């Protein structure tokens, strides 16, 4: 069996599959990628038992062969080869011979592979009720809310992004770690039956984000406890998080008594400077709102303090001071592309809302830090 193909295409596909493999895997079979060469394509797959990925690329071969090989090492040698075509041959003992097809480099590299053994079969994309959505839209949705999900896996329902469609043509992504929440809704053309919603694990969301590009459509579906993504030549299957996503609608304030409009970039700059004078994990700053300005104050013993004034437009004459985690603010402000941001407030112990002025469908909620009032 011999196959000729472009080395960069192969390298890219191997890297896509290999990225799901955990370097900490004990199971040796799963630390390899599975290569299926048949007729006119190569299919490369990998899994860590929770997340499976398979990607295909065109290549004409004389015969069929199935083997596994260490994806990182395979990609590494390809990376070091000059641009252009290479030929690959796999013998009966699964020795993979790689030869650059250029006259400049006379070389032969042989990578040790193994047979398929008990490499698990990765299920095919489940077509029923699949949602079709613009890659750029899904990418934007995930990117804008992912920061709010919990990194730790103690409460699994917070360690992911919740996808739901509770009214026709509307697709919503929500993430929360119970102290803050971000949600975004977008319009989709086709009907989605996802009224109960599913929680996609954080690791899967990150993988999907890596695969999504700015053009073309992608597909998404759910079957039992698994979710499926089909993005260009790559399919991804993952478990979904078992458990009930909290009732997020209940905690999003319907109406805030005070609404303040601020220039986004100005606020980002001020908060970034204030962050220097805060300490993890609370990163506490105090926001003093009045009718036409906002004073951002950070005060940390043994560290220093800062105050900075920013012009605002407010619908209220009342003064209000709120303690808040500056990092949480930064995380969400970074995702706001519009010129100005609308901040909603009701009281010291009530949730703070942030929303781009021109995009009411992207909303973030942050719970304050309780402060002693003077």
């Amino acid at each position, binding site marked *: 069996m011999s196959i000729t193909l472009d080395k960069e295409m192969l390298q890219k596909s191997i890297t896509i599959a290999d990225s799901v493999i955990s370097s900490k895997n004990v199971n040796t079979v799963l630390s390899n990628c599975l290569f299926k060469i048949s007729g006119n394509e190569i299919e490369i797959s990998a899994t860590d038992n929770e997340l499976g990925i398979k990607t295909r690329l065109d290549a004409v071969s004389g015969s069929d062969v199935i083997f596994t090989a260490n994806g990182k090492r395979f990609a590494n040698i390809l990376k070091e080869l000059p641009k252009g075509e290479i030929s690959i041959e796999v013998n009966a003992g699964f020795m993979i011979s790689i030869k650059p097809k250029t006259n400049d480099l006379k070389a032969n590299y042989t990578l040790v592979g193994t047979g398929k053994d008990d490499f698990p079969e990765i299920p095919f994309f489940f077509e029923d009720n699949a949602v079709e959505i613009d890659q750029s839209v899904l990418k934007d949705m995930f990117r804008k809310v992912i920061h709010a999900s919990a*990194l730790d896996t*103690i409460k699994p329902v917070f360690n992911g992004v919740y996808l739901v469609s509770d009214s026709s043509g509307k697709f919503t992504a929500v993430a929360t770690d119970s102290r803050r929440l971000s949600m975004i809704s977008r319009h989709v053309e086709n009907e989605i039956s996802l009224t109960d919603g599913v929680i996609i694990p954080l690791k899967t969301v990150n993988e999907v984000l890596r695969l999504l590009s700015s053009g073309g459509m992608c597909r998404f579906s759910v079957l039992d406890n698994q979710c499926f993504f089909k993005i260009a030549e790559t399919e991804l299957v993952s478990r979904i998080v078992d458990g009930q996503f*909290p009732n997020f609608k209940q905690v999003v304030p319907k109406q805030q008594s005070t609404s303040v409009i601020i220039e986004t970039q100005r606020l980002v700059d001020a908060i970034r400077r204030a962050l220097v004078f805060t300490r993890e994990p609370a990163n506490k700053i105090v926001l003093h709102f009045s009718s036409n300005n906002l004073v951002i104050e950070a005060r940390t013993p043994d560290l220093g303090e800062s105050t900075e004034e920013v012009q605002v437009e407010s619908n209220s004459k009342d003064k209000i001071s709120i303690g808040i985690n500056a990092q949480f603010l930064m995380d969400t402000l970074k995702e706001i592309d519009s010129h100005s941001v609308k901040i909603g407030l009701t009281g010291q112990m009530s949730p703070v809302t942030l929303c781009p002025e021109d995009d009411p469908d992207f909303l973030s909620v942050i719970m304050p830090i309780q402060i*002693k009032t003077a």
Partner: protein
Amino acid sequence: MRNRTILHVDMDAFYAAVEQLDNPALRGAPVVVGADPRKGSGRGVVSAASYEARAYGIHSAMPISMAYKACPSAHFLPPRFHRYHEISTKIMDIFYSFTPVMEPLSIDEAFLDCTGCGKLWGSPRETAEKIKAAIRSETGLTASVGVATNKSIAKIASELDKPDGLTVCDPGNEREFLAPLPAKALWGAGKKTVEVLHTMGLRTIGDVAASDRASLEKIMGKMGTHLWTLANGIDDRDVCPDWERKSFSEETTFEQDTGDDARLELTLMHLADTLSRRMRKSGLTCKTVSLKIRLEGFLTFTRSRTLDEPVNDTRSILDTALEAFRKFDREGKRVRLIGIAITGLQEPENRTERQLDLFGCPQEVADDVKKHRSADTLLDSLKERFGDKVTRATLLKDIHS
């Protein structure tokens, strides 16, 4: 440059020496403190070996079965940590009486910064002699002391003349003093590092000092620069009296490799219980919980989880460790050792500045948390009074079975 006087004091074969001190019949005989050797089939390792036992090639961290084979007639004793701590406290008090700038490195060794104490205790050598004499008269034990202008050389020097030794490296003589010593004597150069140095043809500290710093850094990264600096007799690190604890850990080696999940999880429960109690006692919380697991064949793995909120209750630590354990695919292999370590230690957050929660705390959850917290407190005080016989696991055994 500061001309400091740094002493490294290291007790000689500490655990074994305490045993010989408490039982005159053991004096002059090979004594091994550690796991039960079970006539050569025992597991676990040597904690300490007396100098008489070292003559048979026995050393600490050696598998106990090997020690038994080397000298079956040695006195094999289980450790009595309580007693060692008692004596350690005495020794640390002696150090304090010489200088307040004292940094304990472990139960039986410490750095002392005696810079500017010349009027009080005499020359550096005289100071060291006075400390050794004080230890001998107050505890009956011997220590070895290294004296130098920095920590690294003092630590190396205390090793050179063991037991009951005293080695002084005079100021200005650092490089000459270090040069003939083997590279492995460098503080921080482990087995792997020494192997790398050897492949580069560097066998003595002098070789390392004379080598090219840039190429060392290229091969070994930061460690390369660090070793090169130490080899050239430079070490600016201060003796830190208010040394902060960075981690807590507990582990168990099984008598026989086990594949019994129930037993492993019960062990984790014991470990989480002990660990969290130690943490509560020191008034700290932790952010990271690591599971350590050693399989048959000695392959060791660690799995860490970092939490969003710092914790110190038994349940959170146990749940985190259990989650890591259940996720760990050991491919049907049996387990030799299991342990938990906690890092990212910090003081509990200021309660007057509480981060509010979006979903509040549902009453049941709040009650549950409260219940567990009061159970923790109750158990802590029970153990304080009745010792380790009271454990959460023993209390829960009846409920589960």
